């Protein structure tokens, strides 16, 4: 664009000034940093990981890449430990997510009442979330100790024998899930609380006029109003559960997720392959499988939610 060449004719629309042109381009300019950063730190690693996953690459000798085609993937699907990890990720995901979201819903409902010191409780809710994974896990690992742990001591008081929270498959998964639940319940509570406060209060008043109990109000006013929020928390929790890593790693400090992989998640399995055994190619293959898995799960979540709300609208 040249400003000098503008010989204005009366009838013609005046050409855009530099300022106007910039104004038209500026939205793109504003989003550019994000996309530039995403390309460098999101897209490129994604594609490079796919590339690496087709080779045999060892951390000790990263310059010797050996073409393997899809062998990394077939080896992966032929490995019992992969399926164990997949199953563990699912079971730990369920054990941690379901009670967590239910408790969060209940707590949010309570906090929504006019309580004395409400702000205090709300802030307290967020404290576990602000604690680092490492710190929380270290404390919980002590609590769950087999010989000197507090939890076994309490169980002993009510006559239940010592539980080996590290070696038992169910026990260890419950222990790991407890840490996840503890950390994330408060966070989800606050999100539900925000959602609840967006529900118009006249709905509740109307319900109360109709003689609906608190419980019925919760079922018929709060829950439908929270649907988008609940969907959001489920999607986020699903992604979080699929990527679960820090808690199981730090629980015993074992990269294999316990002596018999009893609580090894997919994230930890990837870490073991990549940073325990230094098989970078194999780890990259796992990363991609996890990526596809998460995308699938999110699509399923959304599809289910869409179908449900579609049905609602038809009513």
């Amino acid at each position: 664009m040249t400003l000098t060449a503008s010989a204005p004719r009366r009838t013609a629309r005046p050409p855009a000034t530099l300022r106007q042109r910039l104004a038209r381009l500026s939205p793109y300019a504003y989003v550019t940093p994000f996309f530039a950063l995403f390309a460098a730190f999101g897209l490129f690693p994604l594609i490079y990981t796919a590339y690496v996953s087709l080779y045999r690459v060892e951390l000790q000798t990263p310059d010797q890449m050996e073409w393997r085609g899809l062998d990394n993937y077939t080896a992966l699907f032929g490995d019992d430990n992969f399926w164990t990890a997949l199953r563990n990720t699912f079971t730990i995901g369920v054990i941690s997510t379901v009670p967590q979201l239910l408790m969060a819903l209940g707590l949010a409902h309570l906090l929504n009442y006019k309580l004395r010191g409400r702000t205090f409780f709300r802030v307290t809710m967020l404290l576990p979330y602000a604690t680092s994974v490492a710190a929380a896990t270290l404390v919980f690992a002590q609590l769950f100790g087999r010989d000197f742990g507090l939890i076994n001591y309490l169980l002993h008081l009510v006559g239940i024998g010592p539980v080996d929270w590290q070696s038992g498959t169910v026990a260890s998964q419950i222990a790991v899930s407890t840490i996840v639940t503890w950390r994330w319940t408060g966070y989800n509570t606050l999100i539900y609380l925000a959602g609840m406060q967006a529900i118009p209060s006249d709905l509740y008043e109307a319900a109360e006029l109709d003689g609906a109990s608190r419980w019925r109000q919760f079922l018929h006013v709060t829950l439908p109003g929270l649907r988008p929020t609940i969907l959001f928390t489920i999607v986020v929790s699903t992604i979080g559960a699929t990527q679960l890593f820090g808690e199981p790693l730090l629980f015993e400090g074992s990269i294999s997720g316990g002596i018999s992989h009893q609580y090894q998640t997919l994230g930890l399995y990837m870490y073991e392959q990549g940073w325990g055994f230094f098989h970078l190619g194999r780890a990259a293959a796992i990363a991609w499988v996890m990526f596809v898995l998460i995308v699938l799960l999110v699509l399923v979540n959304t599809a289910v939610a869409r179908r449900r709300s579609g049905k609602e609208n038809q009513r």
Partner: protein
Amino acid sequence: MSISRAARQATLRLGAVALAGTLLAACGSGSSDSSAQNGGKVTLTVDLFGTFGFKEAGLYAEYHKLHPNITFKESSTENEADYWKALQTRLAGGGGLADVQGIEVGRIASVTQQQADKFEDLNSYGAKSLKNDYSAAKWNAAGTPDGRTLGLGTDVGPEAICYRTDLFMKAGLPTDRDELAKKWATWDDYLALGKQYQAKAGSSSHWMDSIGSLYSLIVGQQKERYYDASGKLIYKDNPAVKTAWDTSVKAAQDGLSAKLAQWTPAWNQAFSSGSFATIGCPAWMLGYIKGQAGSAGNGTWDVAPLPGGAAGNWGGSYLAIPKGSPHAKEAYALIKWLTAGPQQEKLFKKQGSFPSNTAAIKAVSGVTDPYFSNAPVGEIFGKAAESAPVQVLGVHDNDVNVQITNALGEVERKGTSSATAWSHADKGVENAVG
């Protein structure tokens, strides 16, 4: 400083370091060296794991006095597995390496066979003339087939048994170390004595800490463990591995184990609570016991020679210089001094790290340790080091050991059958080596 200790390390605190360490390693390239080279002044960076004890024994200060232009910056990662991860990341990225890096004996084969080009050949600085100062096994393990020397040996890990005299007395067992050595001449004798102990001690105390450590101890006596001399993986068909496995499984079936995985917090606590009466004791374990059992344990421990005839080796380390170090010459002078006789002698007296330097081995032969009931530790470990076989080291020694001891953990803690557990170990090794 043993590899198994490092790898089996399940201490949560260290797990946290693992996370941080990996992240740091990933970001660490680029800030390669921080030496201030003005006026001949040199700052040497030394990166280690566990407790080498150089700083604790005052060796840096001493060296600085001898060479005022040299100052030091030491960094140390407690868990060797994390250290090794970080080191590998830096070697791959080419940045963030220190002038001197510690290498565990279980990794030295990986260095000489896979990464020889990434470390300085110390012979080009004159290391060849030092050869006779070190035990042959220690020296040769750091050499490459084409005659390069990539590291100088620090300590070795000759094995013995440490035991609680107070618990032995309560159970009516003899406490004299010579008598015990005769009583547990073989591993079967050791287990038989264990049964005797167990019958008296009940369920609150056990004969040993875990069968995983018993296994490591027995297999440490072997010349060939997981690899043969040609570098072939032979652990599956090695009768010595099988025997060590079977003995360990038998110990679990006899109920002799406290089922405490090594390097976990619960295991640490057990040193003072008395959950186990004996523990496999490579020389460096002495310092660890003192640290965990504290002053309350003073005089309740003793050391006796290992069952099963010949002694074994468990752990030990090297110092190496990565290629590209701007102060390779100064670094070489330092590691030559640190691994020389007088310094290794000091480290044994201070830390219990048994010397690999022949002059130092002679010098410490009369050392006794009051904490361990005045046991002649210099003599016991000296004899053990002398009779320990020259082990064949392989690239994945550590991985194989971790998988097998994990599987043994399943046997004792989950009641998994021996055959199933072994198949899990097999599977794990396949994964690790694959």
